[in-house]
Structures are given as structure tokens and as C-alpha cells.
């Protein structure tokens, strides 16, 4: 029978095509929904540009000039057309190209998010493994209680406390602002550290608990018992046999957290006055700066899609079971 052999490649192609179609549909739906939502918001960007002294006539004239008065589908299609040619338009407020505006802020948010995830993992991995290895032991009790407590601290409170303790009182870190990498790595990290820690406060418990749960589950697996009966040392078993399979969900979650932080570290960015994407969103949305908002939406959606693809990819790298033979 060759039916199966013939079907196999066709199906595989079908799967990746389906996946691509899915992602495309997601992108379309997201941008369409965003455009529609912004469109539903009352008023037009003109008001934000012309300021309080503008008259309704001036507003109307400006709307017409920028094309804000065109019907919604026309504007959306126009925008999609621009997107396909790599043109995201110009910010209504600043007149700057949207792409440049976003790319200028992306590194800040990216770095903070990466650092936050890195710090979280650095804390979560050893604590998660060791507390999962001795459920109910003293370390486990302290760690689980600590994780619950940390999880219950809102990020804005964590940020304020960190500023007070590590910046204002001790002066170890700057209270706010940003130094780009071009200012030197040490300087850059000095500025990035507190915001990243503030974010990590909320995310570490998530990762830690996930890993701990998986470690507990993996420890029950037969292959761990097998390794134990073969007289392998405990630490070897924990880090060679337990961590790796438990790390799969952890990596997924870390990626998800990373994506989420990219999309929404608004609170921390505004608290620490970081020139990142969150601040841009916070200032563009009320101003109805449609091109910027749409640009951000696309970026967030693409980030989501890319993160998802990376997770898939990560799985194939980390989990041999998903690797093609």
C-alpha cells in the first residue's frame, strides 16, 4: 500500500500551511479589531494635534486633510496595503515614521523583558528544582510561602518599594530613566536593573511554581526511580534526569512571559520613565494616534506569533520526541 507513503508529505505540507493560515488569520483579526476599536473611540487625532483652542471647523478640515474622515474599511485596506509594502505610516502626533518610532523604543522594552525573564529564571530554576526535590521540606516551605507572597505584590507596589530601598535610600541604582547600551554595558545595566527586578518580582513565582510542580511530577516518573535504583548521585539525577524534561513547560512559560512583558510592561515603564513601547502606547492611545497604535498592535501580534513559533521551535530543540526522525 502506498497510500500512506503518498499522503505523508502532502499532509505535512498541509499542516504547516494550516499553521501559517492560522497565524495569518490571527494577525488579520487582531489588526482589524484594533482598527475597529480605535475607530469606535470618539473623536479624531486632529483634536489632539490642534489642542484645546481648536474650533470644530479646524478639526473637520484637518480630518479631511489626513483622511480620517474616510470610511473605515477604506482606511483599513489602505493601511494593510501600506503594511504589505513595509510602510506603517507616520505618527499623527510627531510626524515621525511609525516604524522608526517603534524600533527606537523596542530595544528598551526588549532588554527589560529579557532581563526580567533572565532574572526570574536565575532565581526560579535552582529554587524550583531543590524545593520540588524535597516537597514539604524546610526549603520548600520557605520557597512556596515566599513565592505566594511575591505573587501577591502588585508590580506598581514592588516598583515603588524598590525605588525607595535601592535607589533613594542607598543610591545604588538610579531612580528612573534609561541609559542605552551605547552608554556602556555597566551603565546600561545600572538603569535596567531595577525595572527588570520589579517585573521579575511578579514573574518569578509563576516560573518557580511551574517548575516545582513539574519537578515533583517528574520525580514520580519511572525513569527517575530507575536512575535512583542504579545508584546515581542525587544531584546528577536532579539536573540530568529531572530538570531537562521539566524544563519544557518552563521554557514555554518563560517565552509566554517574555511575550507578555513585551506587550505590557506599561506600569513599570511609566514608573521608571523608560522610553519603551509601553509608554508609547500609553501616550498614543488617548491621542488616537492611529498609525502608531496600529503599528504597536502589529508589533505585539507579530511578537506573539514569533514567540509561539519560537516555543514550537524550542520544543523541537529541547524535546527529541517532537523532532522529525
Amino acid at each position, binding site marked *: 500500500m502506498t497510500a500512506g507513503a503518498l499522503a505523508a508529505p502532502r499532509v505535512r505540507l498541509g499542516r504547516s500551511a494550516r499553521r501559517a493560515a492560522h497565524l495569518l488569520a490571527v494577525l488579520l483579526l487582531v489588526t482589524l479589531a484594533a482598527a475597529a476599536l480605535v475607530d469606535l473611540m470618539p473623536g479624531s487625532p486632529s483634536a489632539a494635534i490642534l489642542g484645546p483652542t481648536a474650533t470644530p471647523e479646524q478639526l473637520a478640515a484637518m480630518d479631511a486633510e489626513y483622511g480620517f474622515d474616510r470610511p473605515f474599511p477604506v482606511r483599513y485596506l489602505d493601511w494593510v496595503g501600506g503594511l504589505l509594502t513595509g510602510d506603517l505610516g507616520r505618527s499623527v502626533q510627531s510626524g515621525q515614521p511609525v516604524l522608526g518610532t517603534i524600533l527606537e523604543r523596542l530595544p528598551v522594552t526588549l532588554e527589560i523583558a529579557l532581563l526580567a525573564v533572565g532574572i526570574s529564571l536565575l532565581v526560579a530554576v535552582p529554587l524550583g528544582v531543590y524545593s520540588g526535590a524535597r516537597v514539604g521540606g524546610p526549603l520548600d516551605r520557605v520557597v512556596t510561602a515566599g513565592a505566594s507572597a511575591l505573587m501577591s505584590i502588585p508590580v506598581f507596589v514592588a516598583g515603588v518599594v524598590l525605588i525607595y530601598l535601592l535607589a533613594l535610600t542607598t543610591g545604588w541604582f538610579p531612580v528612573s530613566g534609561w541609559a542605552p547600551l551605547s552608554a556602556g554595558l555597566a551603565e546600561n545595566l545600572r538603569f535596567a536593573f531595577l525595572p527588570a527586578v520589579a517585573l521579575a518580582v511578579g514573574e518569578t513565582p509563576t516560573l518557580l511554581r511551574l517548575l516545582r510542580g513539574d519537578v515533583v511530577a517528574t520525580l514520580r*516518573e519511572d525513569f527517575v526511580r530507575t536512575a535512583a535504583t542504579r*545508584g546515581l548521585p542525587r544531584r546528577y539525577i536532579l539536573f540530568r*534526569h529531572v530538570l531537562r524534561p521539566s524544563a519544557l513547560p518552563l521554557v514555554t512559560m518563560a517565552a509566554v512571559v517574555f511575550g507578555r512583558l513585551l506587550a505590557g510592561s506599561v506600569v513599570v515603564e511609566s514608573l521608571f520613565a523608560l522610553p519603551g513601547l509601553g509608554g508609547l502606547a500609553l501616550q498614543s492611545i488617548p491621542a488616537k494616534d492611529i498609525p502608531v497604535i496600529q503599528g504597536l498592535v502589529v508589533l505585539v501580534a507579530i511578537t506573539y506569533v514569533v514567540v509561539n513559533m519560537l516555543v514550537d521551535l524550542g520544543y523541537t530543540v529541547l524535546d527529541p520526541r517532537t523532532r522529525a526522525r
Partner: protein
Amino acid sequence: MKGPLLVVEDLRCHIPSARGTVRAVDGVSLTLARGQVLGLVGESGCGKSTLVRTLVGAAPARASVSGAITVSGASLTDMPYEARRAFVGRHVGMVFQDPMSALNPVVPVGRQIGEAVRHHHGLSRAAARARAADLLEQVGVPDPGRRLRHYPHQFSGGLRQRITIAMALSCDPELLIADEATTALDVTVQRQILDLLTGLARDRGMGLIMVSHDLGVIAGRADETAVMYAGRIVERGPTREVFGRARHRYTDALLGAIPRLDAPPHTRLRVIPGAPPDLAGTAPGCAFAPRCPARGERCESESPPLQGESGGHAHACFHPAEGETT
């Protein structure tokens, strides 16, 4: 070295649980000589796995264990925890029921086979690799050099079980324990694996404990058979004796309840009423009494001891069957 390979005396493993203390192993004594195959049969939940786990020091963490275990003259029960683990790792090999879950899915099989020798005998990476290839060859995995790099999911069930056997053999154990090693496999493959296990044990002069719930698996291959029921050994002896002249009522009933290939269709099977007991219960007397056709008053109040007979055939029954079941 003289003396039996394995001596177990009055081993108990009681596991505390929400329903009460589970007496999973409740006073088991065994001996096994080198080069011998011991079959351990019993139905699901009777404590077979717990027994062998306890033997190798892998009883549940909260369990209370008592009794004596001696392997090659060394008393395991007197050893400190880590020393015991190392000793067991070096001298005892284990093969488990489910070959998929007994292998770490994300570690190449070559490393899983070689890691124990590397640890116990300080072999280099390359030497461990060569040894792993050698072992794979011995257990009949084709193309061992290439397959070392493969992951467990890339093997079929039978090959996986061969790999776990290779792992168990890696440190040249004196004792091999196969806990339901073929239950997850198809009959045609089961036969291959059973042949392999017994063949290896014979060639290497190892002691082999074969655990199974399938009487057929034990019947053809074990020198001695021990039948477990509710945490105890209820009958023990040379395999021919146990199968040919079952004395304990449970063994007897069990043999009668199995549909036979050679019996004509629609033969009515002998039924054992009731269900196996819950080991968390603490009823006195013989655990089989509630299901036993020959129970007497004594059976319900007193637990029958394992009594020896000639030829090493022992049973724990006050009203033993006369034998010749089939």
C-alpha cells in the same frame, strides 16, 4: 563467593496512606541462589512491585520497612543510605514494566546506558560509550553504534525493553530483577524478551527474579515460583511442584480460573468469588479466607504460616488442596 545470592527475612513494608496503613509487603522471606530464576506471581496490587522495590531500597519514602536483606553476603539493611544505593546500583539490575516510562525521553539511550558505569566504575566517556554499544549488541539491538545516539521514542516497544535490560546489565549485576518486564508488550515480543532475559541470566550466572501476574510467563521459565497474595507469599516451591500440585487454595483457584488454549470453547471457568483484598484493611486471619471454598474457622482468626514440605515446596494454608489441579 559461597552462600545464596539473596536472602530475605521477614521483610515488611508498610505504607501510611489516607485510607490507613497499607501492608504492601507483610513478612516475606526468600532465598535465591546464583544462576537461579525465581518467578514471583500474584495479581495486581498484591505487593510484588513493592517487594522488589523494597529489596533495592526504593520503597516509598514514607514507608516503614523492617526485616533483613542480604545480597552476596552483604547486609543491605545495615548499610547507610548512600552506601546502600551505591551497592545496589553496582550489584543489582532492575527492569521495569513500562519500557517507555523507564527511559528518560530526552536523554539519548547511549548515555542512559553508560551513565551508571561511568559513575560506579569511573569509565571515560568514550569507554562508557563503547560499553553501551557492546551491551546493546548483547541484548540484540541491531546497529548498536548508530542507535546509541537515538532517543527512546525512536525505538519500538520491544527494542525499548531491550534497552532497559542493557541498562540493568551495565554494571554486571549479580542479581537481575524484572518487574513485569513483558506486561506492556505483545505476546510475540514478550516471548522474545523472556527468552532474552532467561538466556542472559543463564549465560552470566546471574540470579533472576521474574515478577509477573501471568502464571504462563512464570511457568515455562522459572526454576522456583513464589505466589503472592495480599503482601505475603502464600506458596513457594519448584515451579513444577507449584503448578503441578498447587497446595494453597488461592494458587489452586487461580490456575482453574485461567481460560486455556487447549480447552474447548465455552468451557465454564472456575470462578473465584469476590475481589482481591484492600491491603489497607487489618482483618486478622488468612487474607484469602473470604474467597476460599475450603475456609474454616481458624482461617478467619489466625494467619497461616508458610510451612515447608519436602523438596522446598511450602504453602501457607490450613486446608491445603490435594494437588493436581488441571
